[in-house]
C-alpha cells in the first residue's frame, strides 16, 4: 500500500509550464530524493503535494485520500509535513512557540510536551535558546528549527526542500542522522529535494531526476549515481535511459 501516489500531475504558472505529467509513488518508510537543475520543477512538485499550488491536471493521493483541491492545512493534518525552501521561521515568535505551532493538529498538552522533549533532545541548541525569538538564529539554526518544527507533528511523510542549503557539513550530517533515525524507528517517509546527488549516494534510497518540468530518470540512488545516465540526463545530452 503506497502512502503517496502521484499520477500525471501538471502544474502551470500562468502560461509557464512548471511540471508536466509527473508520476511517482512512495511507500511508508521509503526515502526518495528529488534532484535536478535549477528551475526543473522540484519545488513545484513539493508545493503541489502540500496544496500550495493547484495542479492543472492529474491526481495526488496521500494516506489513501485524494488530496487534490484540499487546503494546505487539511493536507498537513493528514500527516504531511513540509519544509519549504528558504527557512520560514516565524521570526517574531520564540523558538518554543515556533515548535509548538508544529504540533497544531494534535493539540493535546501531553503529546505536545513529549514531542517538544524529543525535538529538544535531538537539537539541544534549540532547548538552550527556547525563549529567544527565532529571528536571531543563524541560518543553520533556523534550518534545525524548521525541521524540528516539521517533526513536531509526528508526520507520516516529511518533505524537505534543500535541507543542506547553506549549512555546514557537520550540521548536514546531524540533520540527516536525525531523519534516518526517525525513518528507521518510526517508519517516517522522507521526500527530499537536493540539487546534488552526493547525499543521496551516501544515504541510499530511490531517486528521481527532474529536468524542464519532467521526470527524466528514476531508479535506485546509488546505482543511478554510479552510471553516467544521471550526469547525462542532468545536463540534458543524450536521452538514453
Amino acid at each position, binding site marked *: 500500500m503506497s502512502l503517496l501516489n502521484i499520477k500525471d500531475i501538471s502544474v502551470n504558472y500562468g502560461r509557464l509550464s512548471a511540471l508536466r505529467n509527473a508520476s511517482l509513488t512512495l511507500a511508508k518508510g521509503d526515502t526518495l530524493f528529488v534532484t535536478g537543475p535549477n528551475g526543473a520543477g522540484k519545488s513545484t512538485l513539493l508545493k503541489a503535494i502540500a496544496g500550495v499550488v493547484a495542479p492543472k491536471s492529474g491526481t495526488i493521493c496521500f494516506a489513501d485520500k485524494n488530496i487534490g483541491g484540499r487546503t494546505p492545512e487539511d493536507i498537513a493534518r493528514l500527516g504531511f509535513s513540509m519544509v519549504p525552501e528558504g527557512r*520560514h521561521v516565524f521570526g517574531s*515568535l520564540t523558538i518554543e512557540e515556533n515548535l509548538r505551532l508544529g504540533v497544531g493538529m494534535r493539540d493535546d498538552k501531553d503529546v505536545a510536551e513529549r514531542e517538544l522533549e524529543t525535538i529538544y533532545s535531538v537539537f539541544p541548541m534549540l532547548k538552550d535558546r527556547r525563549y529567544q525569538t527565532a529571528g536571531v538564529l543563524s541560518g543553520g539554526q533556523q534550518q534545525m528549527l524548521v525541521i524540528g518544527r516539521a517533526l513536531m507533528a509526528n508526520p507520516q511523510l516529511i518533505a524537505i526542500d534543500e535541507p543542506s542549503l547553506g549549512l555546514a557539513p557537520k550540521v548536514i550530517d546531524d540533520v540527516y542522522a536525525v531523519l534516518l533515525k526517525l525513518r528507521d524507528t518510526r517508519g517516517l517517509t522522507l521526500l527530499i529535494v537536493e540539487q546534488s546527488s552526493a547525499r543521496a549516494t551516501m544515504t541510499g534510497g530511490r531517486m528521481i531526476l527532474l529536468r524542464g518540468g519532467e521526470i527524466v530518470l528514476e531508479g535506485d540512488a546509488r546505482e543511478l549515481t554510479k552510471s553516467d545516465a544521471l550526469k547525462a540526463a542532468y545536463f540534458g545530452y543524450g536521452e538514453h535511459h
Partner: protein
Amino acid sequence: MTALLQILFDALSLGSLYALGAIGIALIFGVMRLVNFAHGDYISFCVFALLWPSIDAAAIVFAGQLPAYLLIPIILATGACLSMLSEVLVFRRFRNANPATMMIASFALGFVIKYTLLMLFSSRPKSIDLWSELALPVEILDARIPLLQVITIIITVLILAALVAFLKRTRFGLEMRAAAENFTMARMLGVRANAVILLAFAISGMLAASIGLILVTQTGTVDIQMGSSVMLVAFIATVIGGLGSLPGAVVAGFLIGGISVLMQVILPLEVRPFRDAFVYGAVIVVLIWRPNGLFAPRSAKQRV
C-alpha cells in the same frame, strides 16, 4: 499642575480611541494584507444598533434601553457579526487578490454599510442619552476629570491586556501571530486559515463596537459619519505604527492622540483649525522616512 493633568487625561482618552481603532485595522492587515476601509462604518453601524430604524429626526431608542450588562454584549456581538459577515460574503473572495483590489473592495463595502444606515436612519445626526451620568467629573489630584475619560482609559487598558493575553497565552493567539507573519507557512503547519481570519474579524468587529459605545457615550449623538473620522486617524496610526504591527498600532494611536491634544494647546489660535492637516501630513513624512512605518514587523519586507 492641574492643567497638565487635564491635558494628560485628554491625550490618553483620545489616544485610547485611536489605539483601539488602529489595532482593529492592524489585526486584519496582519492576517490577510487587507487595509479595511470599512472599519469606520462598522463603528457607525454598532452605534446605530442602539436605535430602532426610523428616518424621523428624533431617535427611537431600542437596544439602547437595555441594562448595561445586556447592552454591551449585544453591541459587541453586533460588531463581531457584521465584521465576520463581511469576511464571509466579501473578503473571502479576494484571498488571492492584490492589496489594492482588496482596498477598493473594502471601500465599496464601507459605502454600502454607510448608505444602508442612511436609508434606514437618514443622514441627520440624532441625539441619544446613553450613560450621560458618566460625564460628571471626578477629582483626581485637584483636577476635575470627566469620569468617562477615566473609564475610557481603564477600559482600553483592560481590552489591550485581554488581547495580549489572548495572543500570548492561547493556541488561537499563537496561530494568529504566526499567520500574521507568514500565512502560507502557518497553513502548511495545519493552521486553519479560515478560522484564524474569521476570529481576527470577530475581534476587530468587537473593537469597533467598543469604540462606538465610547463615542456615543462621549458625544451623546449618533451620526452615520461618526466612525469615519476615528477610522481615518486610526488608519493613519496603523500606518505610522507599521502596518501589521499590533504594538506599533497601539503606540502610534496614543502618540497621535497625544500630539493632537498637544497641538490643540500649543498651536496659535489661527492655525488651530488645521490641526488635523498636520496629523495627516505627519503620515506622509513618516512614510517617506520609513515606508514600512516606525515599528515595522520584521516580516513585513519578506512578504510579497
